[in-house]
């Protein structure tokens, strides 16, 4: 009886371990978790990979410097991807069933300026050796061109788009994933995007304000701030809210456990962090970075030189400038709303969505003036 009890007990204790023993013997899931060693944070990561893929699969296309001899050609790669190489005519040629379904799965390579017909779904990547005009009301998986890319009205880019020159996006288009350019990006009102990267990014149809000048004269230098919890070198840690009066100058980094409000025309020679929301009145200059655990609202003609990061929403009004050509930077938040007339240099990255809007009345506005 005791032996039976011992055996049953052992079985009960061993049973939960049996799947483990099996996995230990087979080792079907024993490799280290994947860490992408080659990921270098480059926003053009996919475009670079795509270009390498094309060079590998279309050796003759890329090795011929003079593309005059490139003629229309169709075929299929070893992996089953159908492709079309487009010569001087600059227009893809679709089969009737593609026209009927308004859908093509072909990889398109343009040797010259490429123009895409409207109202189509381009399910595979498109490459342009020169320029690409996307047409209107198209859905496109991904685009890359050595020259300019023009995204027409009402288009959706599903994965990424990259131009080695400039990228322009017309109204009511939506860029999911990454949009990058080596020179500049211009994105019209009523467009939305997730991630933009270029040396110059212009928003909307308004001519951007010229480079803002730091106005240091006539400002009142701040030497005391109430409720200082800790102060070390340049960093002031403040318990509660910070209210910087208009036309003030502060040399140092500010950290508040509460909200931060910076008055019009003020100049902070350092970085600012709010653990709640942040509001910058018109014409504020921040030489460092801005961080907020909530929202950041920048009124007109503000200039921030360093990264601008909010854990909720960022609203940037007309005439504001983020970064500079010499010091490109990053704007990042869950939601970003940018008004026409804003200029940014570097990356604008919304985890959810970013919108280009006409005026701030339509935007989220939380921090009381």
């Amino acid at each position, binding site marked *: 009886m005791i032996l039976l009890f011992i055996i049953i007990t052992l079985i009960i204790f061993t049973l939960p371990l049996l799947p483990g023993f099996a996995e230990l013997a087979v080792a079907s899931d*024993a*490799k280290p*978790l994947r860490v992408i060693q080659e990921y270098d*944070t480059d926003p053009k990561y996919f475009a670079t990979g795509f270009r390498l893929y094309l060079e590998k699969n279309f050796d003759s296309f890329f090795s011929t410097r003079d593309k005059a001899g490139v003629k229309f050609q169709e075929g299929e790669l070893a992996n089953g991807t159908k492709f079309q190489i487009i010569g001087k005519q600059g227009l893809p040629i679709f089969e009737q069933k593609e026209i009927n379904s308004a859908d093509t799965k072909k990889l398109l390579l343009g040797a010259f300026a490429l123009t895409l017909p409207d109202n189509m779904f381009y399910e595979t990547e498109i490459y342009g050796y020169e320029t690409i005009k996307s047409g209107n009301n198209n859905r496109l998986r991904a685009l890359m061109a050595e020259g300019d890319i023009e995204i027409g009205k009402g288009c959706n880019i599903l994965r990424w788009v990259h131009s080695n020159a400039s990228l322009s996006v017309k109204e009511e288009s939506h860029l999911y994933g990454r949009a990058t350019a080596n020179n500049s990006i211009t994105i019209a009102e009523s467009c939305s995007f997730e991630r933009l990267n270029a040396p110059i990014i212009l928003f909307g149809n308004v001519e951007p304000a010229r480079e803002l000048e730091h106005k240091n004269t006539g400002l009142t230098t701040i030497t005391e701030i109430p409720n200082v919890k800790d102060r070390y070198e340049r960093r002031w840690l403040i318990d509660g809210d910070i209210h910087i009066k208009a036309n003030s100058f502060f040399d140092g980094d500010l*950290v508040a456990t509460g909200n931060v409000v910076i008055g019009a025309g003020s100049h902070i020679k350092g970085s600012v962090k709010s653990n709640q929301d942040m509001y910058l009145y018109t014409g504020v200059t921040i030489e460092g*970075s801005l961080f907020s655990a909530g929202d950041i609202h920048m009124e007109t003609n503000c200039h921030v030189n360093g990264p601008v990061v909010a*854990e909720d929403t960022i609203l940037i009004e007309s005439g504001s400038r983020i970064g500079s050509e010499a010091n*490109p930077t990053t704007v990042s938040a869950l939601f970003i709303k940018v008004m026409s007339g804003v200029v940014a240099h570097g990356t604008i990255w919304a985890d959810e969505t970013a919108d280009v809007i006409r005026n701030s009345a339509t935007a989220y506005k939380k921090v009381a003036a």
Partner: protein
Amino acid sequence: MFVLVLKFTLFVIIGLILVYTIRHYTFTLNRLFGRQRHPYINIDTASWPNVTVLVAAHNEEAVIENSIEALLRVNYPSNKFKIMIANDRSTDRTAEIIDDFAARYPEIIKVLHRKENDHPGKASALRDATQYIDSEIIIIFDADYIPGLGLIKQLAAPFFDPEVGLVMGRVVPVNTGYNLLTRLLDLERAGGYQVDQQARMNLGLVPQYGGTVGGVRRAALESVGGWLEDTLAEDTDITYRTILKGWKSVYQNHSECYEEAPETWPVRMNQITRWAKGHNQSMCRYTFQCFATKKVSLSEKIDSILLLGVYMMSPIVMLGWTIAILLFYMGENNLLVGSLALFAITAFGTIGNFAAFFEITSAVHLDGGKKRVLLLPFNLFNFLISAVTVSIATIAQLLSGANGCHPRTWVKTPRFRDNNFVIEQE
């Protein structure tokens, strides 16, 4: 009276276990269903600050070459990037290897050779080397770590936030499939980083700087007087001293780097003994300060105090078991009676016992793991061995009297791989 004391102690211990159980569940549920915070990971373009990667190396001839080569490949502006290697009294070929690299890359690599009579230990090596570093950000790696191309930028990015004093990335075991121990440690590390650390980050608590794959702001370090030489766990020590000064520590779950997990149980026990002693040392030093400080929020206070107590819980649980058995044989097992006892035992049996396991399974789920979770029941043995090891370490530390909070010995974890190692990924 004696029985009363035993019963009271047991209730206190049960209360503490309950607190830590709730803590496990809070972290895991937050990680599964809460809002996830990764505020700095999107910063890919910026005017990057000057960064020095500091590597403390003690007899690392087997691995240091790989590590330096990986560091030389990283994507960071070369005019803002330096590597400082503190050769900590190595007796193998480490000095020769790093001198060779320094001769080839004099603009990037600086070397500090510590002498035989210098104070031993990583904290001392870091302290000495930091004197020769002029950059505002110091990123610290162990000599066997192989960073990916973008890792330095990812670890530097949070320092644009003027509140951040410390940054910690995620450590991923590279030798997962070697044996049962490495597979169990892979699960344990996943729970610790993927759930514990990220939940702390999400909840605005105190993610712990772990001593490697992390960084420290020079101003934060200087504001607390630099690295302390007499600490066994310089990572825990610097975490507490900086947060007590009002700096934040942050965790970057996507900033991952491979590490080598111990492959034998004696090495693992030595490692956890050192961690326990170092952690307990910090507990002695900083628990009261955590209660008293006005520079951190209430939730940060609670989290930091509970974090300080994690290694002390092993001997406390052991004590609880002993008291419970003692009371049983003394015929005093009447603490809870009737349906209340049934309810309490059932509740703990179905929920409480599994808090740590729930954390690990959630981590495996978040990592996209499949069959590795089948090894979960074996972790019972791992936990048991760890609990006994930590208890012995803690009791030994307590018995050493006044020196209990000031241990002076430091045991380096041996390396198992060499420079010819190839990463086999999932």
